[in-house]
């Protein structure tokens, strides 16, 4: 278990009190979480062995004030907040890893500030739209359907561990409220269709980019890997077999060395 701290950064833009979970040692790495809110998982723990991981919490989620989301009005605000966080952390150029919604934000950041993203790793990102393979309406799903959409094999121990809820019903209520709120707070930037112009901006990405996709992703189909790759000049695709939307949970042992090798190269 790595020791992690949460640092507070008072961002000028939107007067947002940012919270950045920080752990590990080595060169810096920025990690952007998925729509369900910040999760500290074995994948990030593994990264901490070789990197100093900075994991900002999306406004309204994690350690940030729940109401903070109201003053972040649009994607432009959100990007300027990330830019300011990078400034305040003193990160001139940094590798960025983003998963799902975080993958979309990592792409947005790399397109907005190409010189500040040294390498880009996206895991099953949303952000594009194909009529023949619509992104599943995950915000509208009942919990059982959402879980079945996220994972290929619900019975695997890693998935079961990821889904474990606290025993205390009051804690369950808070965890559930936080999850629903995180979906709403991230959903503010993608509702009702996660196609907010990224397709026009992806050509700006300069960073060497690794596009990772679970082959059986039922939330955002792996056909999207090509959509991202065709728009990012210096990119390649890794499709992970026997894997749904969350490779870092379902296929960590396959994923970790692929990411490590790419970051080392």
């Amino acid at each position, binding site marked *: 278990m790595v020791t992690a701290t949460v640092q507070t950064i008072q961002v000028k833009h939107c007067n947002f009190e940012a919270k950045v979970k920080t752990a590990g040692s080595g060169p810096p790495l920025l990690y952007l979480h998925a729509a369900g809110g910040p999760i500290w998982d074995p994948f990030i723990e593994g990264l901490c062995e070789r990197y100093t991981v900075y994991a900002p919490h999306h406004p309204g989620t994690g350690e940030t004030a729940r109401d903070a989301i109201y003053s972040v009005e649009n994607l432009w605000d959100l990007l300027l907040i990330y830019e300011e966080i990078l400034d305040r952390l003193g990160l001139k150029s940094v590798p960025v890893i983003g998963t799902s919604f975080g993958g979309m934000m990592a792409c947005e950041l790399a397109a907005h500030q190409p010189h500040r993203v040294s390498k880009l790793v996206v895991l099953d990102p949303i952000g594009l739209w194909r009529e023949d393979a619509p992104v599943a309406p995950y*915000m*509208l799903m009942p919990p059982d359907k959402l879980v079945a959409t996220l994972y290929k094999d619900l019975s695997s121990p890693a998935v079961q561990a990821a889904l474990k809820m606290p025993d205390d019903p009051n804690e369950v209520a808070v965890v*559930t*409220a936080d999850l629903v*709120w995180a979906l*709403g*707070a991230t959903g503010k930037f993608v*509702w*009702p269709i996660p196609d907010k112009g990224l397709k026009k901006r992806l050509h700006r990405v300069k960073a060497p980019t690794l596009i990772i996709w679970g082959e059986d992703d039922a939330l955002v189909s792996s056909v999207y890997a090509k959509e991202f790759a065709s728009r990012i000049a210096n990119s390649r695709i890794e499709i992970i077999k026997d894997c749904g939307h969350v490779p870092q949970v379902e296929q960590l042992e396959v994923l970790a060395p692929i990411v490590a090798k790419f970051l080392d190269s």
Partner: protein
Amino acid sequence: MKVTMFHFMPYRDLPESFPDKLHSAWIDAPWWEYGDANKVTDVYNWSIDELMLAAKLGFDGVGTNEHHQNPYGFMCNPNLFGAILAKMTRDQGLDHVALLQLGATISSCPPIRLAEEYAVLDCLSGGRLIAGLPTGLGADVSISNGITPMEHRERWREGIDLMLKAWTAKEFFAWNGKYTQLPKVNLWPRPVQEPHPPVLIPGAASSSTWDYCHERNFPYAYLSYFGGKSSENVMDRFWERAAAKGKDANPYRAAFLQIVGVAETDRKAEEEFGKHVEYFYHKLLHQPLGYIAPPGNADYKSLLNVLVSGKKLLQISDFTTDLKPLKAKDMIEREFVVVGSPATVRDKLTAIAKRLNVGHLMVALQFGSLPHANTKKNIELFAREVLPHLQKLWEDQPWENHWWPKKLRTRPARQREMATA
């Protein structure tokens, strides 16, 4: 008590197999499989006739609302129907009947347009409008109309502020809002009622909405589908919040919606209404939580309140599973619906109004598949045997109803005669 006949205007002809096949009756019921426009012609015309019958038989108000993409109730804009009712009631000398627009959804339409439409209704009816301003159901606001759930409550608040200013300002103004920007506002027409028509806020147990009502001195209409007993938790907390905000316990601060079926005896009522009750709860209300409130729809405080309180606040939360095991008999016993003889209905509604402390009752006398003829009988029996008793409620108390159109606050003698005839 002011008693309004409220209409859902549902589709009355869904097949037996309907609920089991679908994730939801909202959004997910394919029109091309289940809908028939010729039947809808009947539905709209019957529904208007039913409301007009209630108006003639002495009800204090007639009520319409807004919903989208479902067979539960398809008034896409309540003001289309409000306009018809305004004109018909006026032409038929029913100038004592209020138009309770239980709500156009201000967060999903241009607020200035709604300010105009409500002003039109108030003019057309000669000052009989009650302006319902619901926060709106997730399915309607965010799915059918694409509004970001996280923004919808802010849009609703801003929309109401803009509407009130547009109704009352005696100067040109520019509106530089977060969601609406207008270079110059000078609304034509303005409402007849001064300073503006009474506002009513319908809601579904959000603690933030209660606080908003008390802060703004607006009455709250609790839209429970599960009757008086299961609403005690909610309304008790509403009144606790009122006291905490320094508001009195004036029952006219609250309204309550109730499905009602009256027949000659309790047994006959159960026979006559049973299958229509099941049609309503099993087919029409068939809606999952994610559609009622997609993430961001309820603010964090309200969300946590609902989750922590659990069954202590809302016994039923997922309409697709919680309701399935219940038969009409259960729902009558648990008083989701008030179905019975005139004496039973009278007693139960009186008890509900007193227990919840509500001064406005909205009764849905057509619900589910209840046919036109049965609905008319229900309205007639209710108007004759139940309504006059309910209208007397609270009259022995000093409370004043500040939230009803001024000219209708005292019922004309003629209406009393008709109600007791």
